[in-house]
C-alpha cells in the first residue's frame, strides 16, 4: 500500500505541475506530503505560485485561484487513472469568464484524447456554449423533475427564464 501511494503521488504530482502551468498560463506549483515521513500517515499540501506572485499555501490565494488549483489536482488524479465517465457538478461557480474558458479548453482536450464522456452541470452561459449537447431539467410541476433535450438556442432561453 505504501509503495502504491508513493507511485500515485509521483504521477499525480507530475500531472498537477503541468496542469497548473496550463490553467494559470505560467507560474508553478507542486504537491508535497507533510507532517510525517510515512506516506500513509502524512498530509497532502498544495503549494502554488501564480505568475508574478509569491509562492504560498492554498489558503492565501483568492477564491477563484484556489478553485483553479483544486481543479488542477482533480484532473491530475483523473489523468493518472482516466475513467470512462466524468461528472462535474458546478465546479465553475467561483470562476470569472477567462478561467471558465480555460477549464472548458481542458475538458475538450481530455474528451478528445481519453474518449471520456462528461456530464457537466453549470449555471455559466459560457460553459454551456462549449457543450456538444445540452439537457434542461425543469420542475414545471412543483417537486417533480422533468428532463428535456435542448438545442443551443433554447438553452440560452432556459438560462434566462430560469424563474
Amino acid at each position: 500500500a505504501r509503495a502504491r501511494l508513493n507511485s500515485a503521488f509521483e504521477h499525480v504530482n507530475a500531472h498537477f505541475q503541468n496542469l497548473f502551468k496550463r490553467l494559470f498560463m505560467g507560474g508553478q506549483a507542486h504537491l508535497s506530503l507533510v507532517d510525517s515521513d510515512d506516506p500513509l500517515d502524512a498530509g497532502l499540501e498544495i503549494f502554488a505560485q501564480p505568475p508574478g506572485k509569491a509562492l504560498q499555501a492554498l489558503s492565501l490565494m483568492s477564491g477563484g485561484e484556489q478553485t483553479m488549483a483544486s481543479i488542477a489536482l482533480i484532473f491530475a488524479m483523473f489523468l493518472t487513472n482516466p475513467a470512462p465517465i466524468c461528472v462535474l457538478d458546478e465546479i465553475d461557480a467561483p470562476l470569472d469568464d477567462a478561467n471558465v474558458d480555460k477549464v472548458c479548453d481542458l475538458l475538450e482536450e481530455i474528451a478528445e484524447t481519453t474518449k471520456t464522456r462528461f456530464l457537466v452541470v453549470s449555471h455559466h452561459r459560457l460553459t454551456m456554449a462549449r457543450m456538444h449537447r445540452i439537457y434542461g431539467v425543469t420542475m414545471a410541476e412543483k417537486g417533480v423533475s422533468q428532463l428535456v433535450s435542448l438545442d443551443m438556442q433554447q438553452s440560452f432561453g432556459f438560462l434566462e427564464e430560469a424563474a
Partner: protein
Amino acid sequence: LHFKSLRLNGFKSFIEKTDLEIGVGLTGIVGPNGCGKSNLVEALRWTMGESSAKKMRGGGMEDVIFAGTEKRPARNFAEVVLTLDNAAKSAPSPYNHLDDIEISRKIVKDQGSAYRINGRPARAKDVQMLFADTLSGANSPALVSQGKVASIINAKPLQRRMILEESA
C-alpha cells in the same frame, strides 16, 4: 467500455420514467436552482454501488425514493438502470463477450436494495468489482459532486491525502 444511457424511475424528484443519453464528449445540464440537476447525476453514483446515505445527501438510503409532493403521493420504490456499451469488448471477464451491459439497482421501502446485471441478480460486490476494473465506480475522483471542490480547498492536509489514496 462506454457509458451509454441512464434510466431513472421514482429516484428522488424524478417520479416519471426519465431517460438520459450519455453521448460522446461534453454533455451540459442546465436548469433553475432546486429543479433536480444534482439528483440526476447522483443516480449514476448510486447505481455504481454507493453505500453511504450521507454521500447521497440523505439520512437513510430510502431517502432516494420519491417522497411525494402536495399533489402526488410518495412512491415505495426507486430504480435506476445504467447501460454500458461494450462493443469494444473491453469489459472484465464474465461480461466481456456481451455487446451491452445493463446494471440496475432497485430499492424498495423496508426491503433494502438489489442489483441486477443484464437481468440476473448480482451482489453489490460484483457491481463494485465491475466498475473498479474500469477505473470508475461510486468513489472515483472523476465524480465531482456539488461542493466537492470547496471541500478539497478547506480540507486538512490529512483528508486531502485520503482523496489521493482513493484514486491510487
